[in-house]
């Protein structure tokens, strides 16, 4: 939806397009009506929250994925070994 209408408007360069996206963010969250210092407070809180999410995912997601893969391969890989042992 945003891309379709963005193509209709003539953006001369990337800077204008980014400014328009920032304007949409201001309108949708309602920040547009606030005074500049309130806008800064909200932007800094939101930015720090997103930064924390990115950092946490960077640190913890590979470890969790590796552990999950080990768990599941242990389940399927372990089975044939035990039955072969039983038969022999």
């Amino acid at each position, binding site marked *: *939806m*945003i891309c379709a*209408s963005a193509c*209709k*408007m003539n953006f001369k360069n990337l800077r204008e397009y980014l400014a*328009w996206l920032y*304007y*949409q963010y*201001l*309108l*949708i*969250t*309602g*920040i*547009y*009506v*606030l*005074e500049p210092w*309130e806008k800064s407070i*909200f932007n800094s809180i939101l930015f720090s929250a997103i930064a924390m999410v990115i950092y946490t995912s960077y640190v913890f997601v590979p470890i969790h994925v590796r552990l999950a893969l080990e768990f599941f391969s242990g389940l399927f890989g372990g089975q044939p070994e035990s039955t072969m042992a039983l038969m022999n």
Partner: protein
Amino acid sequence: MSSRSRLTKMTESSANKLLNGDACNRTINEKKSSKNGFVKSHCLFQQPHKYRRTVEKNQNVTPSSSLYKKPFVESFEETPLLVAVLTYMGYGILTIFGYLRDFLRHWNIEKCHVAQEREEQKDFVPLYQDFENFYTRNLYMRIRDNWNRPICSVPGAKIDLVDRVSHNYNWTFEHTGKVVKDVINLGSYNYLGFAENTGACVDASIEVTQKYGVGVGSTRCEMGNMDIHEELEQLVARFLGVESAMTFGMGFATNSMNIPVLTGKGCLILSDELNHASLVLGVRLSGSTIRVFKHNNMQSLEKMLRDAIVHGQPRTHRPWKKILIVVEGIYSMEGSIVRLPEIIALKKRYKAYLYLDEAHSIGALGPNGRGVVDYFDLDSKDVDIMMGTFTKSFGASGGYIGGKKELIDYLRHHSHSALYATSMPPPVVQQIITSMKIIMGEDGTTLGADRIRQLSENTTYFRRKLHDMGFIIYGNDHSPVVPMMLYMPAKIGAFGREMLKRNIGTVVVGFPATPIIESRARFCLSALHTREMLDTALQAISEVGELLQLKYSRHQQPHPSLEWTSEDSQLQD
């Protein structure tokens, strides 16, 4: 006002005879009465069965289609879910910041510009804690520059605005001394364009001012009844097609001061959900029992009528002295037109009275400009009390009530407005007389008929173009009031400001005049708007709509080639 016992009169044969040719969903085996005598399923307007949930609530499928001589197309497209969620989120964020600012104001970290209680009152019930005051302080104040803009010219098709600037975020304004000239006026109620400072109306008013002066100096009952007032009332009665009419100095006062005279305790008033504040005030002042039915919903109204007649007054179960249905001709916030043929059918069947407030529809609807009764081609004798105002289509101020001669004679002696309020000033009376004669065609020119046709062409064109562009528009296809949905709180302020930058003056509306997520911009069309002005306005609206992402509608865009018929006006039958 005789007492009524309707239970015995509602036999099955009379219900069958009343409306022949009515395409109703009635089956033969539904005519049974249950034990306590309450006859079910004789309703005129059954709920139409909806087998599919559609995105648009298109109300052009009426069960009793023989009552309507032309198609009745209204649409109120549903709010898209994502937009509703984002709107609530926006209001939530603004509420949090509102609490923050209130905290700073309370602890005197920030200077408080707003009304506050005094030290001695702090232990009593708080005055400014409810949501309306919170909303005003923290949300309305931030976008306040879109309202109360001072005007310094006649409010015609183009208008001049006083330029003002605020240095402390809308708490105080200063005039810069400049004037914004030739702003296209899409906000004034000027449907037939009689708000002008040149022409026949103004010349006649000037003559009358030189003869009578401006002030009247008395009430209608004492010394304020002039011969031009009598002439005006006879003219209004002839215009509406009623026996007699009476005029008042203020439209709001017409409703709020006359409804208490007509009903009292022991009467029942059924009023529409979205009635104007003047009607609500009048109805509450009267002391009658009030029941509210859903907006323009005939099934809800019929159910209430039947319940009222069957059960009577709340504790004693005596029959009601009067049942009065109060509706408006055009609802200005929704742009919807009342379903008058169905209401008249209901009123005749259940023997209720009808009060029709034609504030926006008189002069603006109908092939002869005589209002919603003319639009549906009905008899004006069916409506018991026809009320309207002269503000919107006649370029004056004041209101009128028309009806039977006995009713108006009673009002002349008992109305609070006639007894205590000053009568209408002579130049205003002459403005109404001249403009009404122009509309009726009695001044010898075709100016009236031209303007009515121009208004209906403008309406059809404007609405169709906005709909094709992809905006969500509410209301009937023939109503000159066009509400366009904005939804998000920041877009209310942004829309008003961006339109003013492009030299177009619009009115934006938010809470509390509308439900909290359904904020809108309301365009009022006029007969003085030329096609070029409308094209300029539509171009600007489309630009702002792209900039602010307002094109929410989810219907299919029609092909331009199929829709390009020449201006279709409803007058060319």
